[in-house]
Structure formats: C-alpha cells, structure tokens
C-alpha cells in the first residue's frame, strides 16, 4: 500500500471524522469566544472589552463574589469530607458501609434540586425549618434562617459539591496500604500521632485535589447561585454572564464574553491543578495490603459519632428530599401541612400542562439522542486510544477533556456565538445546538468510562480467542463486547441522566420549541410556583436515583454519576 493510501485508510477516516467533530464544535467555538473577547469595536485586537467590563463595579463584585463563595465552599467541603471519609473508611463506626453510600447521595441529586429543597426549608417566614422553630421554640418571626444570603449559598453548595472531595479522600484512604499505619504503631506512635504523621500526609494530594475539584465545580455552577443568589442580588460570574446574554444587546454579548473568558480560566486552571496533584504518583510503592484492616476504635465517642452521622444523613438526604416530596403534595405552600392541605392537584396540573409535557418529551428525546451519539463517538475515541494506540485517538481524548473542565455557561455562549449563522451554520433555537452542547460537555464522561472498561481487557484475551480459531469479528462479538457491555451501558446512562435534567447550558440555548425539564423547572421556581416546581423535581429525582441504582447494579457498584 502506498503511504497516501495508508493515510486515507478507513480506520483513519473514521477517527478523523470524530476529530473533525471535536474541532468544529469544541475548539472552534471556544477559540472564537476567546478571540472575540479581545476584539475591539472596529475589529482590532485590544483589551478594550476587559477594560470596559472590569471597570464596572458590578462585574468586579461578581468576580470577587465567585472567588469568595467558591473558596468558602472549598474550605468547608475539605474539612467536612475528610472527617466523614475517615469516619466511614477507617473508624469502627457502626453501619459505616451504609453511611458511606448515604453521604454520597447528594452527588447524584442535581444541585438545583438541592437549592429548591433548601429554599423550601429555609425561606424566612414560610420555610419548613423556620416555621418549626417559630412554632415549637418560640423563635421570632420570620425565623432565624435566610436562605437568600451568602451563607445560604455556601451552605447549599457545600452540601451538594462536597462529595467530590469526599470521593477523593475516601478512595485514597481505602487504597492506602494500611500496614503503613501499622508500622507506625509498632514503632511506638499512638493512633492520633499515626493520623498526623502518616495518614494525613499520605492522603494530602487527594485532599487538595478534591478541594480544587469542588472549587471548579462551584465556580461553574449556575442553578444554585441563580435560584439562591439572584433573588437577593448576589451575583457570581455564571449568573452575571446570563444576565448580560438576556439583555440581548451587542454590548451585553461583549461583556458576557469577557466575563466568560475569566470564568473559564478560573475553572480550567483549578481543575487542571487538581488533576495534576492526583496524577502525581510519587507515593506508589510495592503494593500490599494487610490481611485485615483493623478499624480505629472510637471508644466512648462511638455512639456520639453514630448519632452525629445519622443526623447528618438526615440533613443531607432525608430533609431536602422530604421537603420536596411533601411540597409536591401540599395544596397551598406556607399553610400548615395538614390532611386538608394535601392533594394531588399539582401533579394533575403538571400532567395536563402542555409546556411541561413538551419539556418532558424534549428532555427524553434529547437525552436519548445525546447519550447515544456521545457513546458512539466515545467508543471510537476509546478504541483508537486504548486498543489501536493511535495518536489521533489520544488527540481526540485530550480535546474531549477541554469542555469537561469548561463551565457550561461558557460552552453555551461559545456555541451561540459560533453557530448563529455568522459562520455558515445556523443552529440557533434548534434541538441540534442543545444536543451538540450536551455531547460536547459530557463526552469526557463516556470516553473515560469506555476507556476504563477497554483497558481491563488484556490483549491476550483477544489473542486467546484468535488462537482458538475465532475470526477478528467473532472474537469482538464473543469476547470484547460482553466484557465492555456494562461499561457501555453505564456510559450511556451517565450522559442520559445528566442531560435529562441539564439546566446550565439549556437556559442559554433553548428556543420556543426546545425547552426541557430543567428550564421549565427553573422558570416555575423563579415565578414562585413552588409546588409545581416540586412535582417536576420529584420526577427528576425518581429518574436520577432509579438510573443510578440501575447503573450501579450493571457495573456492580463501580460507577455512579
């Protein structure tokens, strides 16, 4: 075969088209966004936009508020996550396996659903907790808590983003060779000293990486700051960007662009730093585990720790989900929760409300389409990356991680700028622009999942099939496919679920015909139709929690969102 023939082989054409897709829908729009932010009014390169945008106090305030809120969220999450991780992994807390799963549940709940729940609980005057404190303990109206505040915002962000840190620290503790701790004990160190001298330094990379991931995630968040911050004029970068886009003016777009680039830099930098910390493997040595991990006895703190964990589980999971479920059945929000005040009328309202039904079908349709296409593209990339070890596969994998780190708000804005017809393709207000956004944003999820399941298939398994007389196709069908199937199904569900309830990008990209559940729910929430919003939130929770149970069954607990 000639060299030209080799370059244009079917194999390269296939991966080439996947690469082309990524270049067109990831690199081009993001590059355009950055470039546009540096273009002056007459199309020359200048810092004009930045000077104009950051000359305004409200924009500075948004930057400072973002850094402030995210730093607090990061700090609280790290402390909270480390304590809990140690408790469920290394101590002799009763039911610690169950608590480990319980503490992780907030991770699979959409954060804006969490925001709605805590608004229901902590709104001054009518929030369930405030009302209870007023009625039972004689607190002064409107009750001690105000969710619409910076502490309220940090509280909800911490509760729903801390699992990122928890996951990191817990798995670092689990993977740590515990004879390292035993060696310190036998050297004469007390359990507390072992924790300081050995355990903490060894998990520190995961500790800091987890914190940085929390920071990046909360900087990218839109739903929580929009629902909790905006009503009391607390703006962060993501909500500020949306404000500008909604103005619909040229100057609004320019300001949104300049703010987005800063938001993107903050999120991508922190996430890159976090991943770098995690990938540094200087602490890996000869593997080995003690025959049996001896949990650290809590002694007289065992029962208090159990009570604390149970209370925490209640606050983390039962209280917010309970508030939403109860509200969805309440006739009038704010009235006492008595039998007369319970009804199914809001379910009836949603089920007959045309816009909500359309939103449901749109969510379903876009979720299925995006998940299927993402899986297809991801499988191609993963195959070329892991099996064929092609440099094109590696390049595609690398590009796919860019939108993963980029805040959804920024991606959506970039897609609007690039595909509103100015550059030959007009996708504005179509399903396509939403589906492209979903695929691009969540592709890295699928690639990672499929890569992981392909990597565990040793080449010798295929070779053994071939030496047994199977053709390449037969060995693919009989050996590879059955082994990667759980991974593929998991990858599909992960994208489907996140797409199903997506809000951040949808809020910028939806059109008259293409609103989804997240958007409708957001609108109901902002127009203070709490019960209808709760009905939708219940629906989303059922799909998401059910989907996660399914995925963890299929993959035997190895993968959740």
């Amino acid at each position: 075969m000639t060299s030209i023939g080799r370059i244009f082989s079917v194999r390269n054409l296939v991966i080439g088209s996947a690469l082309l897709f990524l270049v067109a829908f990831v690199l081009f729009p993001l590059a355009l966004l950055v470039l546009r932010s540096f273009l002056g009014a007459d199309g020359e390169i200048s810092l004009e936009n930045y000077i104009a945008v950051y000359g305004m106090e409200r924009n500075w305030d948004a930057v400072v508020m973002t850094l402030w809120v995210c730093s607090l969220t990061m700090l609280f999450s790290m402390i909270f996550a480390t304590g809990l991780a140690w408790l469920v992994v290394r101590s002799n807390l009763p039911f610690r396996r169950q608590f480990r799963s319980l503490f992780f549940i907030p991770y699979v709940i959409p954060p804006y659903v969490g925001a709605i729940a805590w608004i229901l609980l902590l709104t001054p005057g009518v929030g369930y907790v405030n009302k209870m404190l007023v009625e039972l303990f004689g607190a002064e109206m409107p009750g001690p808590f105000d969710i619409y505040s910076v502490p309220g915002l940090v509280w909800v962000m911490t509760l729903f983003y801390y699992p990122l840190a928890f996951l990191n620290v817990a798995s670092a503790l689990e993977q740590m060779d515990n004879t390292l701790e035993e060696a310190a004990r036998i050297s004469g160190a007390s359990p507390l000293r072992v924790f300081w001298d050995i355990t903490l330094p060894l998990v520190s990379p995961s500790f800091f990486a987890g914190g940085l991931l929390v920071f990046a995630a909360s900087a990218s968040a839109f739903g929580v700051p929009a629902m909790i911050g905006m009503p009391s004029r607390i703006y962060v970068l993501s909500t500020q960007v949306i404000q500008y886009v909604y103005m619909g003016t040229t100057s609004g777009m320019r300001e949104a662009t300049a703010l987005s680039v800063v938001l993107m830099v903050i999120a991508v930098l922190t996430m890159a730093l976090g991943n770098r910390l995690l990938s540094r493997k200087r602490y890996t040595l000869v593997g080995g585990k003690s025959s049996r991990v001896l949990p650290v006895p809590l002694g007289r703190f065992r029962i208090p720790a159990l009570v604390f964990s149970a209370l925490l589980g209640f606050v983390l999971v039962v209280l917010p989900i309970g508030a939403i479920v109860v509200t969805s059945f309440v006739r009038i929000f704010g009235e006492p929760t008595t039998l007369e005040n319970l009804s199914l009328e809001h379910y009836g309202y949603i089920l007959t409300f045309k816009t909500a039904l359309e939103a449901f079908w749109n969510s379903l349709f876009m979720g299925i389409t995006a998940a299927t296409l993402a899986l297809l593209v991801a499988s191609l990339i993963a195959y070329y990356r892991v099996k064929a070890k092609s440099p094109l596969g590696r390049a595609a994998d690398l590009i796919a991680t860019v939108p993963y780190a980029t805040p959804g708000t920024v991606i959506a804005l970039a897609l609007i700028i690039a595909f509103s017809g100015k550059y030959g393709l007009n996708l504005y207000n179509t399903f396509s622009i939403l589906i492209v956004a979903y695929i691009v944003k969540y592709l890295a999820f699928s690639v990672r999942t499929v890569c992981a399941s392909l990597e565990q298939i040793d080449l010798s398994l295929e070779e053994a099939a071939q030496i047994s007389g199977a053709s390449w196709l037969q060995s693919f069908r009989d050996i590879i496919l059955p082994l990667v199937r759980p991974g593929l199904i998991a990858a599909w569900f992960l994208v489907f679920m996140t797409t199903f309830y997506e809000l951040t990008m949808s809020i910028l990209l939806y059109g008259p015909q293409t609103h989804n559940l997240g958007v409708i729910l957001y609108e109901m929430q902002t127009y203070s139709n709490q019960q209808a919003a709760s009905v939708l939130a219940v629906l989303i929770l059922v799909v998401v929690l059910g989907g996660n149970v399914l995925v963890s069954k299929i993959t035997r607990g190895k993968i959740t969102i």
Partner: protein
Amino acid sequence: MADVRLENVSKKFGNVEAVAAFSETIREGEFVSLLGPSGCGKTTTLRIIAGFERATTGRVFIGQELVSCAETNLYKPPEQRNIGMVFQSYAVWPHMNVFANVGYPLKVRGMEKKKIREKVGHVLELVHLEGLDKRLPSQLSGGQQQRVALARALVAEPALLLLDEPLSNLDAKLRESMRFEIKDVQRRLGITVVYVTHDQAEAMVMSDRIIVMDKGYVQQTGSPREIYETPANRFVADFIGLINFLEGELVALEGPDGVVALNGIPGPVHLRGPLHSVMKTGDRVVLAARPESIAVLSEPAPGAIPGRLIRKIYLGNEMDYRVALGSLEVRVTGPAASDGIAEGSPVWLSFNRIVVMPF
C-alpha cells in the same frame, strides 16, 4: 531481649477459627519460624503477638510482662510493646526519606536529635545502607526498601523482632542472599525473632526451631532436622520437601520390630522398632520415605522390595527415578554418577529410613 510465651491462644473471625489453642514458648535469642500454607493461622498468630489482633482466648507474655489476656480483657496496644516488625509490603513510608523512616521509632520515643542521628547511622551500617539516608523510598530498589524496613524495626533495640513474609516480594537470587543477611543480623544482635513464612526452604535455612501450622492448629514443633526427618504426621511430611507415602497394615510384631503388608505391593516389609509401644498387630499404618533415603539397586538384596524402573531423568546434580512397586509409583533420587540401569529393567528398592505414622 525477651522470651515470648503464648498460653492457649485462639482467635475466631466470626465462626472461623483462625488460630486454635496455641501454646508455645519462644526462648530468648531464639529464631523461630511459623510455617504453613496460606490460611493456616501463622500471620494471625504473629499479629496477636504484635497486638494488631486481639485473641479470643489465652494470654501472651513478652519477657516477664503480660501484654494480652483475653479472659481479663487486658490488652496493651502495639505501640507500647517495644517490638520491631518487618511487613510483607515493607510498609516504608513513601513521604519520608530513609533517615526519617529509620529514625521514626526513636523520634516518637522523644530521643534527642543527636542521639537519633548516631543510632540511625549505626543501624544503617548494619543493614548495608550507609550513605542512602537522604533518598526517598521511591528511589530505592525492592531489596533496599526491605533493608530500610529491617533497620527501622531494629533501631529502637526492641526486645523482639517479628517478620511477616519479608522476602516474598523479592526475586529468587536476592531472596537467597537476604536469608543469610537477616540470620546474620539476628546472630550478631542476639535478638529473639518470630518469622512467618510459607516457604519451607526459607524456614529450614534460618530457623532454630520451626512451628508447622495447618488450619489453625500446630502440627509439629521442632528443629529443622526433626521436622524433616521425623515428621509427626502426613501433613507435615507432605508440606516439607518431597516424600513417598506407602499405606498398609501391621501384620506382625517381632519384639520392637514389625512386619508390614503394603497395599498393592507383593511381599512384606520389615521395619525396625520401637513399634510395640505405639502400635499393635492389625493397625493400619502409613510409611513415609524421602526420595533420597531410598536406594535403587540392580540386584536383589536383603529387605529390598522388587519393582521396575519406569523412568529416569537426569537433573544435573542428581538422578530422578520413578519406580513401579506393584500398582504404586515411588520417587527416588540418587547420585547422577550411577546411571547404569536402563528404563524398564527390574530393580530393588532399599529403604534406609522410613517414618511410620498412624493412618
């Protein structure tokens, strides 16, 4: 230095008895191996001595001191037992350099810096790691990490040194040389050592005494020679080295000596006593004979059992013979020089040493 005494120690994990009624005394300065297949209870026993497991019953003494008593709920945590321990994975702390690793036991004992420096220097010399004290563990080979672990276990001059399969992660050559090195260090310091291994050759080379365990029970205790030459039962015989088992029945006792009819083999075998004290006529017995304690003869001889040479394999330093005795196959090893007998020829086996065991 101290002796170690375990009295009726047992450990249950749920319903599984990991260690049962373990009673032994390890004398001061003695090198004792706990030997057995995985799951035999040897590591659990070691971890009970260290204090990482609490025994279900029994008492543990280190020196004169009672460190654990299940019955009175007395338990001293590991950090108060003054023990050195080397782990299978070495457990060298990856975030500390060699000096910090080895000096740690002294640091937690609150020793002054100058004294620590001096002591660490000495012990690094002892394990041949001079000049590597600034290295991080990731910059060391497996063998060097192992020496760091050994140095750390010795630096505080513990009364007792515990080693949990310390050589199993090393390659064969290094393993061999480390055996002698550990033994050498133990001799020079005169320290009491309890050594856990599943490798019988390792146990034979290093130990003063071997405790063979299986399914939680001690099967035999003795010097390497006793364990090898007079195994107490079939398990010990089979676990240590190669051995042939011949089953049969004691047909007659002639004073202390006996006559055994073997299953599947024509002709009686005469055994020298004392058998009369432990057996009576009609008992079923197992005869165990090591391949090297049998001679292959090309001529009949008194007491030799006739058979046929099935296969002979040249192994360089010796010959490996398979001989058919009736329906049985017996393995024999002999000097490589006497290669004269052809496969298929009739031969006679003369048993130089036979161990008689109850069936």
